[in-house]
């Protein structure tokens, strides 16, 4: 891992920090000594060849890997200075939201999808929920497309709409961090660019970490980019730096398409 002079400066405003993070799936060592500070209100992209541990890393941040049998984690992850091990997993997940590769709206109405998270947190008054549903859908730039059909099934929406609905659903619990795992990889270019614009807008209020296989996408919208290889964080720096003067030969090989 290559430290850059910028890292110290980011330290103060970082929302998530990992310290010597290691993860094993049984005997398979999937993450090795990851040290990373994710700055507030920025988009951080995770890139790297398939199987290098991007999803694994992302899922440790909201402890989704707790679900998987045989996972062992060492090291520390802190959210605003608090060790996430000491947080209730459910509370953590309402603070660190996640959007998956494939849109996964629940088989219920658009409204109930958005209200799902707030209801878990104990919001039940219709007026409050109405307001949350509207603002979340607006934030995800999909309000106009579905305001007249809030009570219809979310499964009737197009793929791109469903993914924006999932973003809205994640935003409804007002998370501090939003994790996206290749969330545009299954979408057409128009939907993808809509979501990219949306993320650029959202970063004003949220901290975003996204996994992407699309180099152009990382270059277009990410402020910071982290390059993973075989479970190691090889290089982590400002996106421009990574794409114009990568410090590590392996990063350069990857972004110029020489492997992976």
């Amino acid at each position, binding site marked *: 891992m290559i430290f850059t002079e910028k890292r110290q400066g980011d330290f103060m405003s970082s929302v998530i920090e990992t310290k010597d993070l290691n993860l094993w799936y049984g005997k398979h060592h999937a993450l090795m000594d990851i040290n990373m500070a994710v700055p507030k209100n920025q988009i951080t992209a995770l890139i790297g060849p398939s199987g290098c541990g991007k999803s694994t890393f992302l899922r440790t941040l909201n402890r989704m890997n707790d679900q998987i049998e045989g996972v062992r984690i060492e090291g520390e992850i802190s959210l605003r200075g608090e060790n996430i091990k000491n947080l209730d997993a459910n509370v953590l997940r309402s603070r660190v939201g996640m959007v*998956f590769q494939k849109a*996964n709206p629940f088989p219920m109405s658009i409204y109930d999808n958005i209200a799902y998270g707030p209801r878990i947190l104990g919001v039940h008054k219709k007026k409050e929920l109405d307001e949350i549903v509207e603002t979340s859908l607006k934030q995800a730039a999909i309000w106009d497309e579905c305001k007249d059909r809030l009570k219809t099934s979310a499964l009737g929406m197009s793929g791109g709409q469903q993914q924006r609905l999932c973003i809205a659903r994640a935003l409804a619990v007002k998370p501090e961090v939003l994790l996206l795992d290749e969330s545009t990889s299954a979408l057409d270019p128009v939907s993808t660019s809509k979501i990219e614009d949306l993320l650029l807008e959202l970063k004003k209020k949220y901290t975003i970490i996204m996994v992407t296989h699309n180099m152009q996408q990382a270059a277009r919208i990410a402020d910071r980019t982290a390059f993973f290889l075989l479970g190691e964080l090889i290089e982590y720096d400002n996106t421009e730096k990574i794409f114009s003067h990568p410090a590590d030969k392996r990063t350069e090989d990857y972004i110029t398409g020489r492997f992976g």
Partner: protein
Amino acid sequence: MMDISGTNTSDAILTAKAGISAKRKAKIGALKGLMYFAAALTTVLLVGIIGYIFFRGVPHVTWNLLSTTPSLLTDNIGILPNILNTLYIIIIALVFALPIGVGTAVYLNEYATNKKLVRVIELATETLSGIPSIIYGLAGMLIFVQAMNMGTSILAGALTLAVMTLPIIIRTTQEALKTVPDSYREGALALGAGRWHMVRTVVLPSAMDGIVTGIILSIGRIVGESAALLYTAGMANEILTPLKSITPGNAGATLTVSLYMYAKERGQFDVAFAIAVILLIITFVINISAKLLGKKLKK
């Protein structure tokens, strides 16, 4: 290289293909004939049996039969008690089997981390569902009637059938839970849902059609059961109040058991056929409602 046009070889291949396709056509023709025959035979048998039962039974399905109690003094024959008993047994058996069955399936599919234990329980339920019902009757008699002192009673019969239908409910629920995509579970957990909340709000609703199918299959099993009830619920033909039906010691015959009694012990085939007609209609209604409900819940 020369053969790019392929004239020589392709001729041979074409004739070969033609030969094969002729053979295949003959084969398919024969298979089709066999299938039509089998289908026709099944239909004829089914229509024959049902037609015969209706022919013999329908004239004897009277309002008096449906609404009265049998009496040896007046020579009256009525099956109202049996209709009620059937209903009681369905309800009581499901009250026990449903929560336990669905709970077990949810535990196995959503909570259990010990794969071996899951396999063992699954094997046990599979085995249990294959056991002849008379053996459930025997076990029910030993456990509920005798050891637990319930006597020959609706309650003992219902509990026996609850045990008998448990594997059906567990298995159909489990199958239904397996069809719920993991992405729903992950989505719910990622929003901060606890496991039980996730199961209750996302998993169970998505599995509901399968669970309902299981319930209806169980009802069908209960309605059609006689062997397991002979020793446990008994053969009484008195009207029981709902309260009595759950009190130990109150025996009662269901429709199926009474059919057996009228046909076998008293030789009153007119009544037996009338009951058969009623059972057929009930079965028919159950199957149709299963289909309709399943479709409605899928939406």
